[in-house]
């Protein structure tokens, strides 16, 4: 019996490096598909032995797209080590961190939608690979591409103002932040110039949503039939059930909306969480203990957040949520709906940024709180891609002795593998050549999750993509390259 394997390596237009293998049986029928994460980073190990106050600056280096998420999540965890929590941190520090976070989610979502996902959606999954990118998007709709680029730039400038740099800022320190905003900085976001004003940003976000919804209406059947995956959904949640990106309790619902975790304090996450490992991937497979390995996997990120929340506490985004639910139902499962959900979150972030820019607390100097030293800290945050967990143990002499990081994409690991398998089965007979179109449709399923496979920086342009067909002796039978 000869078994064959198709390998997509690397998966393109995602952050980091991954590989898909599609395993065939002796009749050349699809047997199984897997998403492998082929990089080993080792941050959990080499942060050990470092002084605890270094963690927020050190661990953010595991990502060039969402370093702010790691910076803030680590800072939240280390806050506890210095005896500070969400109740005792100063209002100015809490608001400046939130502002930084909203800027981060806005820029990351804009990057993903306009640079990585929109070329598939708006130019077509099977359009020419040479133009299926942001440049092709700009050629098709210059105004849309320009707004996408400037939306991202606005988010980056918010990060620069609050964190000190667009990438890898250092302002969140144990117990608070080390800088506030100047009135000049605030005015620049209200006035606009090289970047759009906050009013323009909000207006553009609604325009982009309208544009997406027009596309969605035209292509609804393809979008919804692309990949339906019934799953649990996990996210932080606000006190009153509102969408919450920075701090809240942990809620998990089933595919039908039943609460699986009922707004629990995330400090108890080890009571409900377990991680599985597989020999074929460096990424772990977390699951909820009480549901078991088979049923305890969850999806996180924009779609999960819209499913778990009861409402959004910013008016325009709430209106969009109502529209989203009227089209798709209360608990939709379509994987491509991640994109729509992501655009609603961009609008929400813009509205929140507007409120914070009008808040006098972000200009005040009451930036640091103090408390009694503790030996452990746990931080949770809704990063752009989903729930992010940082957990540190610190010895009395100040060195970190243990670190556990469960990054957003890890939660989606099983879901992405299931989506890849489902999609491969779905299109197996459609693309008999197993060429570019076949490859891309598999990648589109992964891309919807906006995975940050290594939490690494992403380069614009076409990445090399190669399919190798091998027999069970690992002999190369055929290679298809872009």
């Amino acid at each position, binding site marked *: 019996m000869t078994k064959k394997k198709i390998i997509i390596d690397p998966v393109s237009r995602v952050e980091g490096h991954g590989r898909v293998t599609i395993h065939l049986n002796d009749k050349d029928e699809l047997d199984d598909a897997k998403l492998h994460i082929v990089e080993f980073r080792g941050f959990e190990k080499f942060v050990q*032995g*470092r*002084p605890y*106050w*270094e963690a*927020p*600056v*050190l661990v953010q*280096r595991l990502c060039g797209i969402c370093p702010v998420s790691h910076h803030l999540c680590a800072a939240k965890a280390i806050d506890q080590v*210095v005896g500070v929590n969400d109740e005792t941190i100063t209002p100015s520090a809490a608001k400046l961190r939130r502002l930084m976070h909203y800027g981060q989610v806005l820029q990351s979502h804009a990057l993903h939608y306009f640079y990585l996902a929109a070329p598939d959606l708006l130019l077509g999954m099977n359009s020419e690979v040479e133009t299926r990118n942001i440049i092709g998007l700009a050629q098709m709709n210059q105004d849309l591409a320009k707004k996408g680029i400037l939306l991202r730039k606005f988010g980056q400038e918010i990060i620069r103002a609050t964190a*000190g*740099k667009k990438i*890898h*800022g*250092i*302002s969140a*320190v144990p117990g608070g932040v*080390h*800088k506030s905003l100047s009135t000049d900085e605030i005015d620049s976001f209200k006035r606009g110039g090289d970047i759009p004003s906050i009013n323009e940003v909000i207006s553009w976000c609604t325009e982009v949503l309208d544009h997406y919804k027009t596309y969605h209406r035209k292509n609804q059947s393809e979008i919804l039939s692309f990949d339906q995956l019934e799953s649990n959904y996990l996210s932080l949640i606000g006190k009153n059930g509102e969408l919450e990106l920075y701090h809240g309790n942990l809620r998990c619902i089933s595919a039908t909306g039943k609460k699986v975790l009922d707004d629990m304090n995330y400090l108890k996450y080890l009571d409900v969480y377990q991680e599985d490992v597989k020999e074929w991937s460096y990424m772990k497979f977390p699951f909820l203990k009480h549901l078991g390995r088979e049923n305890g996997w969850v999806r996180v990120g924009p779609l999960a957040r819209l499913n778990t929340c009861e409402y959004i506490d910013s008016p325009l985004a709430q209106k969009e949520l109502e529209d989203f639910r009227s089209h798709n139902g209360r608990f939709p499962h379509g994987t491509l709906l991640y994109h729509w959900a992501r655009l609603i979150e961009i609008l929400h972030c813009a509205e929140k940024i507007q409120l914070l820019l009008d808040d006098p607390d972000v200009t005040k100097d009451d930036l640091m709180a103090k408390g009694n030293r503790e030996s452990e800290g746990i931080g949770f945050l809704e990063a752009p891609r989903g729930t992010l967990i940082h957990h540190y143990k610190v*010895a009395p*002499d*100040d*060195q970190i002795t243990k670190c556990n990081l469960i990054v957003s994409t890890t939660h989606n690991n099983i879901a992405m593998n299931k989506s890849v398998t489902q999609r491969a089965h779905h299109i197996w007979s459609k693309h008999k050549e197993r060429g570019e179109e076949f490859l891309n449709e598999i990648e589109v399923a992964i891309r919807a999750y906006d995975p940050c496979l290594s939490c690494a920086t992403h380069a614009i342009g076409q990445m090399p993509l190669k399919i190798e067909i091998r027999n069970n002796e690992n002999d190369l039978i055929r290679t298809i390259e872009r």
Partner: protein
Amino acid sequence: MSSPKKIPITVDGKKYDVPKNINLVEALSSQGIRVPTLCWYKGMDDCLGTCRVCTVNVNGRPSAACTLNTTEEMKIEFDTSELNDLRKSIIELLFVEGNHYCPSCEKSGDCLLQAEAQALEMTHSRFPYEFNHYEIDYSGEMIILERNRCVHCKRCTELFTNDDGEKVFSFIGKGKDTQVVINKETEKSLSKHKAQEAMDLCPVGAILVKGEGFKTPYGERKFEKEPLWIKK
């Protein structure tokens, strides 16, 4: 008090009148010529002469400028491609011998080694990294000794004392095994202010004050406000 006698010296073929018998680095600095240094700093009584980054040619012979005082008719070569490369290579050697991860170092922006490397336009090291193992000493009450970053300049061992005038740091070992250690008895009495003084004295991030870090925003750190470069 009369002003010190001026004497003529030549630097890169150009004549200067400088005070007699003063430290050569200081003399050159007074003429607008910034000599890179790690161990020497303005105002110190005796030079340490450990880092050799200030190497110049005096009357045709390579010498550490901080170890010399001005004498009449000194002929100094300073800004030559060979000497600039020599100084850069010394900096590179320090980078490969230690483990310097600037992105997560709290001294970044305030670090003299980093600033001199930038001034010398170091983009990489020509020497292979050694990835040596160094123990971080957390045993102090006020101070952490991050030996991965130590450049053995002797500033802390020679120049720093606690409020009672007692030394806090010393060297143990020889050659490659030389390392700085903390005297736990004398370190115990350090005030936070004195601990910060020790951290500021260290040209790199080897001495850290416990419980604090990253206090200064980007753009306001020492060498971001006053970047170094070799004045041509």
